[in-house]
Protein backbone atom coordinates (compact mmCIF):
# COMPACT_ATOMS: atom_id res chain seq x y z
CA UNK A 1 0.00 0.00 0.00
CA UNK A 2 1.37 3.33 -1.06
CA UNK A 3 0.36 6.69 0.42
CA UNK A 4 -1.11 9.39 -1.80
CA UNK A 5 1.40 12.02 -2.99
CA UNK A 6 2.49 14.72 -0.59
CA UNK A 7 5.23 17.29 -0.17
CA UNK A 8 7.76 16.69 2.57
CA UNK A 9 9.46 19.42 4.57
CA UNK A 10 11.76 19.13 7.52
CA UNK A 11 11.41 21.53 10.44
CA UNK A 12 14.65 22.72 12.02
CA UNK A 13 13.15 24.14 15.24
CA UNK A 14 9.82 24.30 17.05
CA UNK A 15 9.39 27.87 15.73
CA UNK A 16 10.10 26.71 12.19
CA UNK A 17 7.54 23.90 12.56
CA UNK A 18 4.93 26.44 13.71
CA UNK A 19 5.77 28.74 10.82
CA UNK A 20 5.39 25.84 8.35
CA UNK A 21 2.04 24.89 9.94
CA UNK A 22 0.92 28.49 9.48
CA UNK A 23 2.02 28.53 5.84
CA UNK A 24 0.45 25.23 4.84
CA UNK A 25 -2.73 25.39 6.92
CA UNK A 26 -5.13 22.50 7.37
CA UNK A 27 -3.60 20.40 4.59
CA UNK A 28 -0.40 19.91 6.54
CA UNK A 29 0.31 17.26 9.16
CA UNK A 30 3.17 16.99 11.61
CA UNK A 31 5.19 13.79 11.30
CA UNK A 32 6.93 12.46 14.43
CA UNK A 33 7.50 8.68 14.58
CA UNK A 34 4.95 8.10 11.84
CA UNK A 35 3.61 4.97 13.49
CA UNK A 36 0.03 6.17 13.59
CA UNK A 37 0.10 8.59 10.67
CA UNK A 38 1.86 6.44 8.04
CA UNK A 39 -0.39 3.38 8.51
CA UNK A 40 -3.40 5.70 8.03
CA UNK A 41 -1.81 7.29 4.96
CA UNK A 42 -1.08 3.86 3.48
CA UNK A 43 -4.77 3.01 3.86
CA UNK A 44 -5.60 6.49 2.50
CA UNK A 45 -7.58 7.23 5.62
CA UNK A 46 -5.35 10.30 5.82
CA UNK A 47 -4.17 12.23 2.76
CA UNK A 48 -2.28 15.32 3.95
CA UNK A 49 -0.77 17.32 1.12
CA UNK A 50 2.25 18.33 3.21
CA UNK A 51 4.15 16.44 5.90
CA UNK A 52 6.21 18.53 8.28
CA UNK A 53 8.83 16.24 9.77
CA UNK A 54 9.62 17.23 13.37
CA UNK A 55 11.58 14.09 14.27
CA UNK A 56 14.92 15.86 14.07
CA UNK A 57 14.09 18.82 16.32
CA UNK A 58 16.76 19.31 18.94
CA UNK A 59 15.64 19.90 22.56
CA UNK A 60 12.33 18.04 22.19
CA UNK A 61 13.63 14.68 23.30
CA UNK A 62 14.67 13.23 26.64
CA UNK A 63 13.53 12.92 30.25
CA UNK A 64 14.53 15.34 33.03
CA UNK A 65 13.51 16.40 36.52
CA UNK A 66 12.08 19.89 36.97
CA UNK A 67 11.09 20.77 40.54
CA UNK A 68 8.26 18.48 41.60
CA UNK A 69 7.74 17.12 38.08
CA UNK A 70 9.37 14.83 35.59
CA UNK A 71 9.35 16.50 32.16
CA UNK A 72 9.46 14.43 28.98
CA UNK A 73 10.21 15.91 25.54
CA UNK A 74 7.40 15.24 23.05
CA UNK A 75 9.73 13.41 20.66
CA UNK A 76 10.97 10.92 23.25
CA UNK A 77 10.40 7.43 21.89
CA UNK A 78 8.47 4.72 23.73
CA UNK A 79 11.62 2.58 23.99
CA UNK A 80 13.53 5.48 25.57
CA UNK A 81 10.75 5.99 28.13
CA UNK A 82 10.78 2.30 29.01
CA UNK A 83 14.57 2.43 29.55
CA UNK A 84 14.67 5.79 31.39
CA UNK A 85 16.20 5.55 34.86
CA UNK A 86 14.51 8.76 35.96
CA UNK A 87 11.08 7.43 34.99
CA UNK A 88 11.83 4.01 36.47
CA UNK A 89 12.43 5.69 39.83
CA UNK A 90 9.97 8.59 39.81
CA UNK A 91 7.17 7.71 37.39
CA UNK A 92 7.42 3.94 36.92
CA UNK A 93 3.81 3.68 35.72
CA UNK A 94 4.72 5.72 32.62
CA UNK A 95 7.88 3.69 31.94
CA UNK A 96 5.99 0.43 32.33
CA UNK A 97 3.11 1.46 30.04
CA UNK A 98 5.59 2.68 27.40
CA UNK A 99 7.30 -0.72 27.49
CA UNK A 100 4.01 -2.40 26.59
CA UNK A 101 3.29 -0.33 23.47
CA UNK A 102 3.20 -2.52 20.37
CA UNK A 103 6.53 -4.30 19.95
CA UNK A 104 10.23 -3.34 20.07
CA UNK A 105 10.30 -2.06 16.48
CA UNK A 106 7.27 0.18 17.12
CA UNK A 107 8.86 1.42 20.37
CA UNK A 108 11.98 2.40 18.38
CA UNK A 109 9.92 4.82 16.27
CA UNK A 110 6.76 5.97 18.06
CA UNK A 111 6.88 9.05 20.31
CA UNK A 112 4.98 10.09 23.42
CA UNK A 113 3.88 13.37 21.82
CA UNK A 114 2.52 11.50 18.79
CA UNK A 115 0.68 9.04 20.99
CA UNK A 116 -1.04 11.80 23.00
CA UNK A 117 -1.82 13.96 19.96
CA UNK A 118 -3.26 10.95 18.13
CA UNK A 119 -5.55 10.25 21.13
CA UNK A 120 -6.50 6.66 20.45
CA UNK A 121 -8.67 5.60 23.42
CA UNK A 122 -6.95 2.18 23.42
CA UNK A 123 -3.42 3.60 23.61
CA UNK A 124 -1.25 2.97 26.65
CA UNK A 125 0.40 6.32 27.37
CA UNK A 126 -2.72 8.52 27.46
CA UNK A 127 -4.23 6.44 30.28
CA UNK A 128 -0.93 6.17 32.15
CA UNK A 129 -0.57 9.97 32.07
CA UNK A 130 -4.21 10.53 32.97
CA UNK A 131 -3.84 8.33 36.06
CA UNK A 132 -0.57 10.14 36.87
CA UNK A 133 -2.29 13.55 36.85
CA UNK A 134 0.03 14.64 34.04
CA UNK A 135 0.03 17.73 31.82
CA UNK A 136 1.07 18.80 28.35
CA UNK A 137 2.89 21.88 27.19
CA UNK A 138 1.54 23.13 23.87
CA UNK A 139 3.31 25.72 21.76
CA UNK A 140 1.41 27.87 19.27
CA UNK A 141 1.89 31.12 17.39
CA UNK A 142 0.89 33.08 20.52
CA UNK A 143 3.22 31.26 22.89
CA UNK A 144 2.95 28.23 25.12
CA UNK A 145 0.14 26.98 27.33
CA UNK A 146 -0.14 24.14 29.78
CA UNK A 147 -3.12 21.77 29.68
CA UNK A 148 -3.89 19.06 32.24
CA UNK A 149 -4.24 15.59 30.71
CA UNK A 150 -7.64 15.64 32.44
CA UNK A 151 -8.73 18.42 30.04
CA UNK A 152 -6.83 17.31 26.92
CA UNK A 153 -8.95 14.57 25.35
CA UNK A 154 -12.33 15.69 24.01
CA UNK A 155 -13.54 12.77 21.88
CA UNK A 156 -12.62 9.84 19.70
CA UNK A 157 -9.18 10.84 18.27
CA UNK A 158 -9.94 14.43 19.33
CA UNK A 159 -8.12 16.76 21.68
CA UNK A 160 -7.93 20.47 22.53
CA UNK A 161 -4.73 20.70 20.46
CA UNK A 162 -5.24 23.35 17.76
CA UNK A 163 -4.12 22.75 14.15
CA UNK A 164 -1.44 25.42 14.56
CA UNK A 165 -0.07 24.01 17.82
CA UNK A 166 2.73 21.63 18.68
CA UNK A 167 3.00 19.37 21.73
CA UNK A 168 6.45 20.21 23.05
CA UNK A 169 6.56 18.44 26.42
CA UNK A 170 4.64 16.16 28.72
CA UNK A 171 4.97 16.30 32.49
CA UNK A 172 4.00 14.18 35.44
CA UNK A 173 4.40 14.73 39.19
CA UNK A 174 7.39 12.92 40.70
CA UNK A 175 6.10 10.02 42.75
CA UNK A 176 9.08 8.21 44.15
CA UNK A 177 7.95 5.05 45.94
CA UNK A 178 4.21 5.57 45.32
CA UNK A 179 2.27 2.35 44.67
CA UNK A 180 1.03 2.00 41.10
CA UNK A 181 -0.63 -0.61 38.92
CA UNK A 182 -1.08 -1.14 35.18
CA UNK A 183 -3.15 -3.87 33.57
CA UNK A 184 -3.42 -4.38 29.81
CA UNK A 185 -5.67 -7.14 28.55
CA UNK A 186 -4.69 -8.45 25.11
CA UNK A 187 -5.37 -11.68 23.29
CA UNK A 188 -2.09 -11.85 21.39
CA UNK A 189 1.40 -10.48 21.92
CA UNK A 190 1.90 -6.96 20.48
CA UNK A 191 -1.85 -6.21 20.30
CA UNK A 192 -3.57 -3.06 21.46
CA UNK A 193 -5.28 -3.40 24.84
CA UNK A 194 -8.91 -4.57 24.72
CA UNK A 195 -9.20 -2.74 28.04
CA UNK A 196 -6.40 -1.14 30.06
CA UNK A 197 -6.36 0.17 33.63
CA UNK A 198 -3.75 2.50 35.13
CA UNK A 199 -3.65 3.62 38.74
CA UNK A 200 -1.44 5.67 41.03
CA UNK A 201 -2.13 7.94 44.01
CA UNK A 202 -5.83 7.07 44.25
CA UNK A 203 -6.54 7.97 40.60
CA UNK A 204 -7.76 5.28 38.20
CA UNK A 205 -7.77 5.67 34.39
CA UNK A 206 -9.40 3.32 31.90
CA UNK A 207 -8.35 2.74 28.30
CA UNK A 208 -10.76 1.63 25.56
CA UNK A 209 -13.84 2.04 27.78
CA UNK A 210 -15.22 4.97 25.78
CA UNK A 211 -14.21 7.54 23.15
CA UNK A 212 -11.24 8.77 25.23
CA UNK A 213 -9.07 7.53 28.06
CA UNK A 214 -11.23 8.28 31.09
CA UNK A 215 -11.22 8.27 34.88
CA UNK A 216 -13.10 5.61 36.84
CA UNK A 217 -14.67 8.29 39.03
CA UNK A 218 -17.03 6.04 41.00
CA UNK A 219 -14.11 3.80 41.95
CA UNK A 220 -11.96 6.78 42.93
CA UNK A 221 -14.75 8.23 45.09
CA UNK A 222 -15.34 4.89 46.80
CA UNK A 223 -11.63 4.57 47.56
CA UNK A 224 -11.61 8.10 48.97
CA UNK A 225 -14.50 7.11 51.27
CA UNK A 226 -12.43 4.17 52.48
CA UNK A 227 -14.14 1.37 50.54
CA UNK A 228 -12.26 -1.92 50.16
CA UNK A 229 -10.46 -2.58 46.86
CA UNK A 230 -12.95 -5.27 45.72
CA UNK A 231 -15.92 -3.00 46.50
CA UNK A 232 -14.36 0.01 44.78
CA UNK A 233 -13.33 -2.04 41.74
CA UNK A 234 -16.93 -3.26 41.27
CA UNK A 235 -17.81 0.35 40.33
CA UNK A 236 -15.08 0.70 37.67
CA UNK A 237 -17.37 0.58 34.62
CA UNK A 238 -19.99 2.90 36.08
CA UNK A 239 -20.83 5.79 33.76
CA UNK A 240 -18.78 4.36 30.86
CA UNK A 241 -20.06 3.45 27.41
CA UNK A 242 -17.61 0.90 26.03
CA UNK A 243 -17.95 -0.03 22.38
CA UNK A 244 -18.69 -3.43 20.94
CA UNK A 245 -16.21 -4.47 18.26
CA UNK A 246 -14.76 -7.70 16.90
CA UNK A 247 -12.55 -8.14 19.97
CA UNK A 248 -15.16 -7.81 22.70
CA UNK A 249 -18.68 -6.57 23.36
CA UNK A 250 -19.44 -3.73 25.73
CA UNK A 251 -20.59 -5.97 28.55
CA UNK A 252 -17.41 -8.02 28.43
CA UNK A 253 -15.36 -4.81 28.42
CA UNK A 254 -17.20 -3.68 31.57
CA UNK A 255 -16.38 -7.00 33.19
CA UNK A 256 -12.72 -6.59 32.20
CA UNK A 257 -12.67 -3.05 33.62
CA UNK A 258 -13.85 -4.34 37.02
CA UNK A 259 -11.44 -7.28 37.14
CA UNK A 260 -8.44 -5.31 35.87
CA UNK A 261 -9.17 -2.42 38.23
CA UNK A 262 -9.16 -4.83 41.18
CA UNK A 263 -5.83 -6.26 40.01
CA UNK A 264 -4.27 -2.85 39.40
CA UNK A 265 -5.40 -1.50 42.78
CA UNK A 266 -4.18 -4.65 44.55
CA UNK A 267 -0.81 -4.28 42.84
CA UNK A 268 -0.65 -0.61 43.83
CA UNK A 269 -1.49 -1.42 47.46
CA UNK A 270 1.02 -4.28 47.67
Amino acid at each position, binding site marked *: *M*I*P*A*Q*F*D*YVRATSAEHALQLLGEHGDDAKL*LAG*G*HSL*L*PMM*KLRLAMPSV*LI*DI*AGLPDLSGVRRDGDDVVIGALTKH*GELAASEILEREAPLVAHAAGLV*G*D*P*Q*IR*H*RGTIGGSLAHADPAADLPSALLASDGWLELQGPEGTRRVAVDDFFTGYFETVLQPDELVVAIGTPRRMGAGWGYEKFTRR*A*NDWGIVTVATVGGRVALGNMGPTSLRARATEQALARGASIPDAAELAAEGTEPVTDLHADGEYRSHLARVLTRRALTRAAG
Partner: protein
Amino acid sequence: MRVNITVNDEPRSDEVEPRLLLVHYLREVCDLRAANVGCDTTSCGACTVLLDGKSVKSCTVLTVQADGHSVTTAEGLDGGAEELHPVQAAFRAEHGLQCGFCTPGMVMATVGFLSENPHPTEEEVREGLEGNFCRCTGYHNIVRAVLHAAESA
Protein backbone atom coordinates in the same frame (compact mmCIF):
# COMPACT_ATOMS: atom_id res chain seq x y z
CA MET B 1 13.83 14.70 -3.14
CA ARG B 2 17.52 13.80 -2.84
CA VAL B 3 18.42 11.49 0.04
CA ASN B 4 21.83 10.47 1.32
CA ILE B 5 21.64 7.16 3.10
CA THR B 6 24.37 4.75 4.11
CA VAL B 7 23.09 1.32 3.14
CA ASN B 8 25.10 -1.64 4.41
CA ASP B 9 28.10 0.63 5.04
CA GLU B 10 28.02 2.16 1.55
CA PRO B 11 27.03 5.82 1.22
CA ARG B 12 24.41 6.34 -1.49
CA SER B 13 22.65 9.32 -2.93
CA ASP B 14 19.31 8.87 -4.70
CA GLU B 15 16.43 10.95 -5.96
CA VAL B 16 13.19 9.60 -4.46
CA GLU B 17 9.53 10.51 -4.15
CA PRO B 18 8.65 11.50 -0.55
CA ARG B 19 6.04 8.73 -0.40
CA LEU B 20 8.52 5.96 -1.26
CA LEU B 21 8.56 3.52 1.66
CA LEU B 22 11.96 2.42 2.93
CA VAL B 23 11.24 -1.23 2.16
CA HIS B 24 10.51 -0.37 -1.48
CA TYR B 25 13.63 1.80 -1.67
CA LEU B 26 15.74 -1.10 -0.42
CA ARG B 27 14.15 -3.70 -2.68
CA GLU B 28 13.64 -1.71 -5.85
CA VAL B 29 16.17 1.12 -5.84
CA CYS B 30 19.03 -0.64 -4.00
CA ASP B 31 18.15 -4.09 -5.37
CA LEU B 32 18.40 -5.61 -1.89
CA ARG B 33 15.65 -8.21 -1.60
CA ALA B 34 16.20 -9.61 1.90
CA ALA B 35 13.59 -7.42 3.61
CA ASN B 36 10.19 -8.82 2.64
CA VAL B 37 6.76 -7.26 2.65
CA GLY B 38 4.50 -9.62 4.57
CA CYS B 39 1.55 -7.76 6.04
CA ASP B 40 2.27 -4.18 4.93
CA THR B 41 0.51 -3.07 8.16
CA THR B 42 3.39 -2.87 10.69
CA SER B 43 2.43 -6.20 12.24
CA CYS B 44 4.53 -9.10 10.94
CA GLY B 45 8.12 -7.84 11.07
CA ALA B 46 9.18 -9.48 7.77
CA CYS B 47 10.42 -6.06 6.63
CA THR B 48 12.60 -5.47 9.73
CA VAL B 49 15.92 -3.71 9.08
CA LEU B 50 18.25 -1.74 11.33
CA LEU B 51 18.06 2.05 11.22
CA ASP B 52 21.13 3.45 13.01
CA GLY B 53 21.45 0.05 14.65
CA LYS B 54 17.86 -0.15 15.93
CA SER B 55 15.28 -2.57 14.54
CA VAL B 56 12.43 -0.90 12.63
CA LYS B 57 9.68 -2.06 10.30
CA SER B 58 10.69 -0.63 6.94
CA CYS B 59 7.12 -0.81 5.58
CA THR B 60 6.31 2.01 8.02
CA VAL B 61 9.28 4.31 7.49
CA LEU B 62 9.54 6.78 4.61
CA THR B 63 12.82 6.75 2.71
CA VAL B 64 13.07 10.49 3.34
CA GLN B 65 12.94 9.80 7.10
CA ALA B 66 16.13 7.75 6.70
CA ASP B 67 17.95 10.61 4.96
CA GLY B 68 21.27 11.19 6.72
CA HIS B 69 21.04 7.88 8.58
CA SER B 70 22.37 4.39 8.09
CA VAL B 71 20.40 1.27 7.23
CA THR B 72 21.48 -2.34 7.57
CA THR B 73 19.73 -5.24 5.85
CA ALA B 74 20.45 -8.96 6.11
CA GLU B 75 22.71 -8.60 3.04
CA GLY B 76 24.89 -6.27 5.08
CA LEU B 77 25.53 -8.68 7.95
CA ASP B 78 29.21 -9.41 8.22
CA GLY B 79 30.51 -12.78 9.39
CA GLY B 80 34.13 -11.61 9.38
CA ALA B 81 36.26 -14.64 8.54
CA GLU B 82 33.18 -16.89 8.65
CA GLU B 83 30.71 -17.33 5.80
CA LEU B 84 27.74 -16.32 7.94
CA HIS B 85 27.12 -13.77 10.68
CA PRO B 86 26.80 -15.55 14.08
CA VAL B 87 23.04 -14.93 14.17
CA GLN B 88 22.59 -16.40 10.70
CA ALA B 89 24.80 -19.37 11.64
CA ALA B 90 22.69 -19.96 14.76
CA PHE B 91 19.47 -19.94 12.70
CA ARG B 92 21.01 -22.54 10.43
CA ALA B 93 22.36 -24.67 13.29
CA GLU B 94 19.03 -24.70 15.16
CA HIS B 95 16.81 -25.05 12.08
CA GLY B 96 15.27 -21.68 12.90
CA LEU B 97 13.51 -21.47 9.56
CA GLN B 98 11.11 -23.42 7.40
CA CYS B 99 9.88 -21.54 4.30
CA GLY B 100 12.28 -18.70 5.14
CA PHE B 101 9.93 -15.81 4.42
CA CYS B 102 10.08 -14.36 7.94
CA THR B 103 13.78 -15.15 8.35
CA PRO B 104 15.50 -11.96 7.17
CA GLY B 105 13.21 -9.99 9.51
CA MET B 106 13.75 -12.44 12.36
CA VAL B 107 17.50 -12.27 11.90
CA MET B 108 17.59 -8.46 11.82
CA ALA B 109 15.25 -8.19 14.82
CA THR B 110 17.57 -10.62 16.63
CA VAL B 111 20.71 -8.65 15.77
CA GLY B 112 19.04 -5.49 17.08
CA PHE B 113 17.68 -7.24 20.16
CA LEU B 114 21.01 -8.83 21.14
CA SER B 115 22.76 -5.48 20.79
CA GLU B 116 20.38 -4.15 23.47
CA ASN B 117 20.28 -7.33 25.58
CA PRO B 118 23.31 -9.56 24.90
CA HIS B 119 22.44 -12.19 27.54
CA PRO B 120 18.67 -12.66 27.42
CA THR B 121 16.54 -15.25 29.18
CA GLU B 122 14.20 -17.37 27.07
CA GLU B 123 11.26 -15.22 28.14
CA GLU B 124 13.11 -12.05 27.16
CA VAL B 125 13.81 -13.58 23.73
CA ARG B 126 10.11 -14.32 23.24
CA GLU B 127 9.20 -10.75 24.23
CA GLY B 128 12.05 -9.28 22.21
CA LEU B 129 10.74 -10.94 19.04
CA GLU B 130 7.05 -10.27 19.67
CA GLY B 131 6.97 -7.97 16.64
CA ASN B 132 7.94 -10.80 14.26
CA PHE B 133 5.51 -13.45 13.08
CA CYS B 134 6.43 -16.80 11.58
CA ARG B 135 3.48 -18.20 9.66
CA CYS B 136 5.19 -21.59 9.52
CA THR B 137 5.05 -21.20 13.34
CA GLY B 138 8.54 -22.52 13.94
CA TYR B 139 8.88 -20.36 17.04
CA HIS B 140 10.60 -22.92 19.28
CA ASN B 141 13.56 -23.30 16.98
CA ILE B 142 13.73 -19.56 16.39
CA VAL B 143 13.97 -18.98 20.14
CA ARG B 144 16.65 -21.69 20.37
CA ALA B 145 18.56 -20.01 17.56
CA VAL B 146 18.52 -16.65 19.35
CA LEU B 147 19.71 -18.22 22.61
CA HIS B 148 22.40 -20.11 20.67
CA ALA B 149 23.54 -16.86 19.01
CA ALA B 150 23.70 -15.14 22.40
CA GLU B 151 25.83 -17.96 23.83
CA SER B 152 28.20 -18.13 20.88
CA ALA B 153 28.81 -14.36 20.85
